[in-house]
């Protein structure tokens, strides 16, 4: 700014603050609010729909507020279908994948960021090169492998392939690079072994990155459809997305109340987790560009 003022001494220095709210600005705000409404309406519609009777759900014109509020859709998820079971399956599988990624990615992230060993750069190149490999490419060979290992239709078949992703390694390495070397060197001089340094110094210092890694691993695991759909063949092992997708295509195709209630069960925990932790989340997204 000083430079500008010097170059154009006759002109007033422009202020950083925008001028008084103009008409243009109000139009922008209206548009942005409209956009917000468009993103929110389907979720509101889902919530309200899950409380309506089947009759009201197919009524024309549709109603916003349920005329008769019913919890029948939810009780059918519990009694006629096995949703508590699917909820537990989803929770167990997603948590196992998250914990595995946090442990494994922190370890290799530390090695890539702070230890010098032969082949390190090659290893990091491998991580980068596989960042964009699509899941559908490994679908068939993974199934072939899992049937050889007798793991088809088990939780392990879903957990293992997701337990060590390249994204997490990238995130942890980038974060750990910023830990001062002096700190680690001092501990080494004091005779601490690498595992002790990792556990006592690096892990506590990396807490924000671990939180971010936890969220960006948990959400896609919770939402995943394709691979669980392929490898989980018996109903008792279904995750929530698999159950919902299969029911939505099959016998409950037109049972909108049940489908809306099922969507609520699938979506609401994610929204709660996201709203509680969104600070970590958006930070990690903008830091690394990793998608949820």
């Amino acid at each position, binding site marked *: 700014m000083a430079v500008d003022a010097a170059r154009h001494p006759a002109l007033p220095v422009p202020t950083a603050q925008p001028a008084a709210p103009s008409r243009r600005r109000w139009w922008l705000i209206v548009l942005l609010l409209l956009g917000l409404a468009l993103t929110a309406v389907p979720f509101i519609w889902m919530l309200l729909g899950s409380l309506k009777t089947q009759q009201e759900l197919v009524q024309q014109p549709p109603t916003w507020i349920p005329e008769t509020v019913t919890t029948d859709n939810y009780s059918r998820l519990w009694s006629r279908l096995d949703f508590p079971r699917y909820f537990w399956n989803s929770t167990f599988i997603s948590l196992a994948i998250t914990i595995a990624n946090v442990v494994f990615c922190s*370890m290799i992230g530390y090695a890539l960021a702070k230890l010098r060993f032969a082949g*390190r750069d090659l290893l990091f190149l491998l991580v980068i090169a596989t960042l*964009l490999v699509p899941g559908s*490419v490994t*679908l068939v060979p993974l199934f072939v492998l899992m049937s050889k290992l007798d793991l088809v239709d088990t939780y392990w078949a879903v957990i293992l*392939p997701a337990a*060590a992703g390249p994204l997490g390694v990238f995130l942890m390495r980038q974060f750990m690079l910023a830990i001062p070397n002096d700190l680690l060197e001092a501990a080494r001089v004091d005779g601490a072994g690498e595992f002790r340094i990792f556990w006592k110094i690096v892990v506590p210092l990396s807490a924000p990155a671990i939180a971010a890694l936890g969220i960006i691993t948990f959400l896609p695991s*919770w939402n995943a459809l394709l691979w669980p759909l392929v490898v989980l063949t018996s109903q008792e092992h279904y995750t929530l997305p698999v159950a919902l997708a299969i029911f939505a295509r099959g016998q409950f195709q037109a049972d909108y109340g049940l489908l809306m209630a099922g969507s609520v069960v699938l979506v609401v925990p994610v929204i709660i987790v996201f709203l509680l932790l969104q600070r970590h989340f*958006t930070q990690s997204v*903008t830091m690394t560009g990793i998608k949820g």
Partner: protein
Amino acid sequence: MSDAAIRRPDQAVPHGTVWSRLSRHLTGWLFALPWLIIFAVFLLIPIVASLALSFTSFGLGNLRDWFSADFVGLDNYSKLLSDERFHKAARNTAVFVVVGVPLTIAFGLAAALGLNQAIGKLQSVFRVGYYLPVVTSIVAIAVIWRYLLNADFGLVNAALGLVGIEGPNWLGQKSTALASIIALGVWRNFGFDTVIFLAALQGINPVLYEAAKVDGATPWAMFWRVTLPLLRPTILFLAVITSVGYLQLFEEPFVMTGGGPLDSTLSVAMYVYEQGFRFLNLGYASAVAYALFIAIVALTFIQFRFLRGDEGA
């Protein structure tokens, strides 16, 4: 830290000995090993195996004894060239990417520019709101949207009815089914682009705008001459990430249309699933998947060339 530095000279660290060097390499690999084993077995080997499988007529009967599968050379790939359903799937997926990616980026950028200019403290509320669909399950979103788009009692057609338009059977006819799925993709994903663009916009030095303003630039000129060139790396990044995601289109058509009507929303990933796990042609499904993989690599490469090519100009 400082006393450690002082103590360092008398705590002779044996850097030179063979054992210490060996143990240093070993420690590095030990930290990498748990991740590396799982990664190699469940990602690296399957990528290579996928290519190998695509040269065979692997079927259910070969699951126990892998080497009993017949080697068929390039048969699967030549079959791809004449498989009309694959062509349809490839065309639909290409349309989804070619139309969907620019739209997603444009909406993401428009929302980011708007938020950056008009909204002060409430920006984070909007950001979270726009981001919400990105983190929610596509299955649930597809289920909800199928209901919203229902021809007879869906909310969309009811809203259109209020202004006197009779809405079509969105998912039930060839002319609108794929367009509906593209709209859903844009709706779900633009918030991700908005968050990334906002971060990039906030990184632009305000002095540049002030200088442009002093030189008499209109807001429109400032956007084209200052903002857009500076956002080029961000656009490249988003184009790559979004294309790779869109090329794998699966959940939306799987839940909403089942690939219909008349295969008008069949995607390549759906075709892999169908060939592999409904018709159990595992070898052929691998060839389809590998074609998709090659398309992803090629598109990423082209985008890098295209959006980076004239950086110096």
